[in-house]
């Protein structure tokens, strides 16, 4: 499977990464090279194999549904690029 320039732009859009037009050919080559290489997995017989999600090999633990943390908005907001009062600020989304 080979990516065309339009697909490279679509992936970049999905990934929310700006890609300048002159960077598309290079990215296209690199991504196709990697995808061509991982294509080798198509030769493995996986019929009837259940997918493995993680390395822990255990069922995820459930915890009590209670509040165990929080209450320090100022410490959280300390790393915000922009804020308005006790909120994160972003450019206007709704006109």
């Amino acid at each position, binding site marked *: 499977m080979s990516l065309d320039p339009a697909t490279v732009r679509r*992936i970049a859009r999905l990934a929310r990464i700006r890609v300048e037009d002159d960077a598309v050919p290079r990215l296209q080559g690199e991504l196709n090279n990697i995808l061509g290489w991982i294509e080798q997995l198509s030769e493995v017989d996986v019929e009837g194999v259940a997918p493995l999600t993680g390395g822990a090999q255990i069922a995820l633990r459930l915890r009590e549904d209670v509040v165990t943390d929080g209450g320090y908005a100022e410490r959280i907001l300390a790393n915000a690029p922009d804020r308005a009062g006790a909120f994160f600020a972003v450019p206007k989304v709704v006109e």
Partner: protein
Amino acid sequence: MMFFDLSIVEAAAGLRRREFSARELVGAHVDAVASLNKRLNAFITETPELALAQADAADVALAAGTAGPLAGIPLAIKDLFCTEGVRTTAASRMLANFVPPYESTVTANLLRDGAVFLGKANLDEFAMGSSNMTSAFGPVENPWQRAGSNAILVPGGSSGGSAASVAARIAMGATGTDTGGSIRQPAAFCGVAGIKPTYGRCSRWGIVAFASSLDQAGAFGRSVADCAVLLGSMAGFDPKDSTSVDRPVPDYVAAARRGVRGLRIGVPREYRMDGMNADVEALWQSGLRWLRDAGAEIVDVSLPHTKYGLATYYIVAPAEASSNLARYDGVRFGVREDGEDLIDLYERTRETGFGDEVKRRIMIGTYVLSAGYYDAYYLRAQKVRALILKDFTDAFARVDALLTPTAPTAAFAQGEKMDDPIAMYLNDVFTVPASMAGVPGMSVPAGPDAQGLPLGLQVIGRPFDEETVFAVSQVIEDAAGFSAKPQVRAGA
């Protein structure tokens, strides 16, 4: 007093006997970092005042008899562990200004035991790399050099700064993380010991996430015993990580002294590759002989899906990364690049904040998870991953541990393997399968290659049987007697 060749075990004993103070030990290391880091670039952030204050606290605790097992021991902390009040960058421009308001569980455990932090060690950006060349804060220099050459070598990656600082003796030990080989491969390249424990053994809470089903914290030391001491402190159940496993942490230091008499050690035949480096092959044979001489039985085993490990990894890890790194959007923390609207802000922030390798992996991950391709790539990779785990499960029904090389070659030079991402990925061919299976692995320095560079052997164990991994590694370390020192080091 010469501090730089002491092991953690020796230094802890010396501190308790009051042969020297923590202030003296840490002060010597703080000065060594200040002097050698200009060249090595092993630390992104140095914290000398913090280290000296922690040393003074350790001296008080030592005098009062309340000192923890790591009191006064100066360590390097990979800059992927969040440290409260100390900038944590993941070696990315994206987090160049990020100061965590909390402490990761692993570093909190080390602080509980009295450890001293010299600073935050350099790494590949977001731990994505095998050479430390992708760091936004510049590459790390390997303290080792080829005989008769002053070419600058890479320390491996992603935990390159951690491994280089321990090898150069500017830190006594270090934390690392390993997703596909990021502790074991740099340990081998820098001639130090490094352990990746079983997935779930160390809490991932507060570690900047790369691929959450693979990421696992571990330790670097200049000896197997030092790694055992560090891991014993770092490991343990943490309710804040849903994949942290609630089982007691054994006495790893005692386990390392068990020996290998009666153990069955497997040699996976698929790890013997065509065109294998002759020095690596010879060292592997030596390792098997050392274990046989110490009373182990050597058994041929098969891990038939070994050759698919890397390709599986390069679907699963980018897929998880594309999801984990979605949080870097310029809104809540990290850098922001302003845009015409919110989408433009996201896209410009991520274009300038991430480096090329990180962007490549996010895009691969986005593609393999996208509608129409999920089954062909991601679901298939998860099934192959199940087969890789089954390979190990079957092998461990017959043997107690496996012995393999850690990496296909010794350290390479900066600039080599940079043009082709896949050539770089192949560094992890021997380490990735154990990561996919979640089993513990350790690299032990076992000998020099023909150019005088260190090579490592990898010991792989059953899930949660780090004890046997340490025992086998200790026998390798003792038999190898690898005592060469790097050209660039403190006290030289």
